[in-house]
């Protein structure tokens, strides 16, 4: 089982993830229409790019926009969740040891204490997000089962990894569960709401171009759109 999930299945997952993400990006760009969207994307490309970068940058920084500042608790949780989600798997010591074994190189790795904090952070943030969905009427009305499923897909690798490393007596079993969960997440990214992994940038860039070109970017000094 272990050779299979870390061999062909892993390759398949990565391929689907990478190709899927590229397809989503290309599909998005191809589906833009200057006249229907009412944004002169190509004529004013430099203003557009300025607007796009601005739009992405403001939202990538905690408290960079008024929406983040108006919701400080959510913002902190949101960033703990997303930073943990993205940083932990890439710089985790254990993952890099495997990388070294397989391909002969590894990335910078973080101390285990840091990855533990990030992992626990992701799990606590996920619990908060679930509770928030249930507690706040304006979020509850929007929530569907699908939202919980997507959240579960994203958090499962962290929960199972943590169990495998610290809790489980049957390390091998939980390790395989952890790997499969990670692969499910990779495969799910292009096909589910998790596609915002790339589409966040596309969507923000589009609105940024809209503001940068048409909605004042060429006139005023602008704001954090």
């Amino acid at each position, binding site marked *: 089982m272990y050779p299979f999930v870390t061999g062909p299945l892993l390759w398949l997952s990565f391929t689907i993830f990478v190709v899927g993400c590229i397809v989503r990006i290309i599909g998005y760009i191809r*589906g833009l229409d200057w006249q229907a969207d009412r944004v002169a994307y190509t004529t004013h490309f430099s203003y557009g790019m300025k607007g796009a970068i601005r739009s992405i940058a403001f939202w990538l920084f905690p408290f960079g926009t008024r*929406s983040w500042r*108006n919701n400080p608790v959510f913002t902190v949780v949101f960033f703990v969740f997303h930073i943990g989600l993205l940083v932990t798997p890439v710089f985790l010591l254990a993952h890099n040891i495997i990388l070294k074994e397989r391909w002969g190189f590894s990335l910078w790795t973080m101390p285990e204490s840091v990855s533990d904090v990030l992992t626990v952070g992701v799990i606590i943030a996920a619990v908060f997000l679930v509770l928030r969905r249930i507690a706040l009427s304006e979020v509850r009305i929007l929530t*569907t089962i699908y939202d919980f499923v997507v959240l579960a897909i994203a958090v499962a690798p962290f929960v199972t990894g943590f169990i495998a490393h610290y809790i489980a007596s049957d390390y091998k079993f939980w390790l395989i569960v952890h790997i499969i969960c990670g692969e499910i997440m990779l495969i799910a990214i292009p096909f589910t709401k998790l596609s915002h992994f790339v589409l966040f940038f596309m969507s923000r860039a589009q609105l940024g171009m809209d503001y940068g070109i*048409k*909605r*004042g970017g060429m006139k*005023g000094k602008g*704001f954090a759109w």
Partner: protein
Amino acid sequence: MPEGILCNKKTVDAKEQLHALLADAGGKQYYEEMNHLDIDKDALWTTIRKTFKSRFKTWLEICAHCGLCAESCYYYLANNRDPKQVPSYKIQTTLGKLIKRKGDVDNTFMQMCMDTAFSKCSCCTRCGVYCPFGIDMGIMFGYLRGLLFSQGFTPWEMKIGSGMHRIYRAQMDVTTEDWIDTCEWMEEEWEDDYPGLKIPIDKENSDIMYTLNAREPKHYPQDIAEAAVLFHLAGENWTVPSEGWEETSLAMFAGDWAACKMQVETVYAAMERLKPKSMVVTECGHAYRATIVEGPYWAGIKTGQPPVESLHYVEWVAEALRTGKLKIDPAKKIKEPVTYQDSCNYVRNAGLADIPREIMSYIAEDFREMKPNREHNFCCGGGGGLNGIGRYREERNIGFKVKRDQILATGAKLVISPCHNCWDAIRDMEEIYHMGIKWTFLKPLLIDMVEVPEHLKPKEE
């Protein structure tokens, strides 16, 4: 397929159709017929397939259902935080469902969509600024309005409005003759007080071509005279076109995109014909957005810009005050507390946030900002065509509460509002909520405050 006599999928292109609609007081028969209107599902789905692309698709798909848009919406705030007023909920249950069902929807659903798109969203686009993904539900509701219009589901007044544009190239039945007569009348009426005052019609190669809102010749002709006086005092070389003078677009509110194109093309044709250096539009928010911001795209101009540089009235005023073309008598500056209503259509949709503040610095001694303001300001409550729609009066009046409280919190008794829609909304707000405030455009204020150069003063008899 039952099509009503008044409520149907046909556009209003003939005066007889328009008169029949106007004769149906309050749209009683129109709305009754709407209850029986069938949906051409194939046509609807074909339109969606052609026009529902990346941007909308992605917006609906990746919405994380986080609810951050809730507090950005003044309807949500004004309706005691009713979750059904959360922008994401409103769009998912209308456009979202329409897409999921591939256009296979019934009359009740379409009417629900119409009611939501017009009485729960004024397309102010504020939610888009508060969504981490940049999902702009105002834009999507604009798109939905277009789909609804194509199937005959549009409020009675919007059907009339788009018909007016199709027939008169104006939002009201003002003919070229009416328009020219009004200009001549205003010129005669005011030239005693301002010797040499002219309203030059169709003058080529002027510095400014002035365009406006059909309400002005129809109901507020003094507004044209005031504009003329201010251009006159500023020594501007200006003109108005005999045709292509109307900048507004009820067709934009209705979602009648073909009529939008027809309307803006008359203005662009006037620009081509008269070759002015620039165009200035009256104190109207949606007129500016329709003709300057969105219009070039309807007309298929690849640069996304109108044929000549186009300014909103506030931009002209700021420039005139900055350069001294117009001089304010310091003794006449506004002493009482005054606040300013940012129009969504030119602040969030065109970036004109600094300009009004500059004007305030010249004319007001105690200027007080509403909170929030500039690009974050709330809609007046009457935007998106809502002021003109009888069916949604109550919803609009509830929505007013947010702006009412914003104004009252400033302590100002005067609201400057260089936008016809906002101006109307604040007037109605005062009538309903008795706030004890006054509201005004810039023009009448400036007329009272500017110094008249000696050589332009009337000669003593």
